[in-house]
């Protein structure tokens, strides 16, 4: 796995925002801008969706991205493709080495299947996203747009016999992933509140986002 440090100086960022565990963040990133997500305390999952700002029906497509790069993991050099096959962003720096885009996001409904029917009221990523689209109607999103995401910092290895495993994260305190936008995009992040599995070390913690012009 290739690791690549970024030359960008956090002091020069035009935006720095800490996202608490279990909160969402939605904002625009312009073409050519650099966008970083920092795993401040380590072992956190940042469930992320991207939309084309000009027409949000064009959006990040996990399956097109994986197929066209010929690999199930995201890392430096991965070009994040839209459902129209266009490059939305490219990962340009990464201190983790591998990010998941197969496992999707937690939901109160999928929690009932994975853990227990009586866990349906626990906070979940898709609830955060749905609150985001309800509170921020100016982005023109609805549940129809809540789809197959990237789990930055998560490690979900596929075995040769077709199994899917949830391994201990490769991330750690202060590690980050950085990408450059190839078009104007809307970024929607749920900082994952999952308490039932080790994706957050059973202790969800804050992340930070930074944008450079």
């Amino acid at each position, binding site marked *: 796995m290739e690791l690549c440090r970024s030359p960008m100086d956090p002091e020069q960022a035009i935006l720095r925002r800490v996202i608490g565990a279990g909160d969402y963040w939605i904002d625009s990133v312009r073409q050519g801008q650099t966008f970083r997500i920092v795993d401040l305390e380590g072992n956190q999952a940042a469930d992320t969706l991207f939309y084309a700002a000009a027409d949000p029906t064009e959006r990040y497509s996990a399956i097109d991205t994986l197929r066209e790069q010929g690999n199930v993991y995201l890392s430096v050099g991965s070009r994040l493709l839209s*459902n129209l*096959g266009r490059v939305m962003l490219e990962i340009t720096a990464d201190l983790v080495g591998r990010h998941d885009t*197969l*496992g999707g996001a937690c*939901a109160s409904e999928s*929690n009932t*299947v994975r853990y227990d029917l009586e866990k349906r009221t626990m906070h979940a990523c898709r609830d955060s996203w749905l609150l985001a689209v309800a509170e921020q109607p100016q982005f023109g999103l609805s549940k129809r747009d809540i789809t197959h995401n990237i789990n930055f910092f998560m490690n979900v290895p*596929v075995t040769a016999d077709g199994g899917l495993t949830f391994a201990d994260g490769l991330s750690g305190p202060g590690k980050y992933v950085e990408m450059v936008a190839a078009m104007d995009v809307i970024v929607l992040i749920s900082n994952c509140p999952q308490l039932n599995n080790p994706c957050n070390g059973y202790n969800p913690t804050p992340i930070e986002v930074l944008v450079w012009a």
Partner: protein
Amino acid sequence: MTIDYQTLLDGGKHWSFTARRGTGLSLEDVEGGANLAMLFYNPANPLERYNAPDTLKCQHTFRLTRGHCLYSDMGRIFCSIVEDSLGWHDTVGGNADKALVARRWGLSRYQEARNDWTQNGQDAFLVEAAKYGLGRRDLAANVNWFSKVAVAGDGSLSFVPDHSPPGASVALRFEMDTLVLLHSCPHPMNPAEAYPRRPVRLGFFTAPPVADDDPCLTLRPENRRGFANNRLYHLGGGH
């Protein structure tokens, strides 16, 4: 099992239907090398739709085979795989669009080829989706029956040619009313030199009730909870 209705879907075609709870559907790759893509929705609320990540995650699998259930994003089971002669079906490879078909096989237009044109999976799904008021925003990672995309240790993906022999078959049992969009257009990773055009035989039947030792119900505790969610959904609803 008595087949109530049988039809042959030629390669490169699309269709859709609503399968009622308790309906069985058998699929047969008649000549070998077929690809049958499917998407699933709740006809009473199409915002509830097939979710490949949830399906893979809760059953700890990358492939689909007998015993697996296909989940909606609402924690319910659209259908379960009750028979399978292959052991591996894909739900990550997605669809070919018009540009990919043109690049790989060249476009064969309706004006010349009539119904032997080189239809693509993306357009096929868009046409069927529009019949129910759905569009591009509603498409998702689909199932590709009869296709296998293998993963190596470093995560690299490869399409496995000749995975599905003539006569390969799968049978589904619908666990709730389900809108099914389907097409038989080529898998986007198929390296065949000529546009692959392989027919699939579909057979509809009435599935026997789910027994206590059903292989889908008993595969994992997660599936018991999925079936419990379906029971809750149908409480007081007859059937």
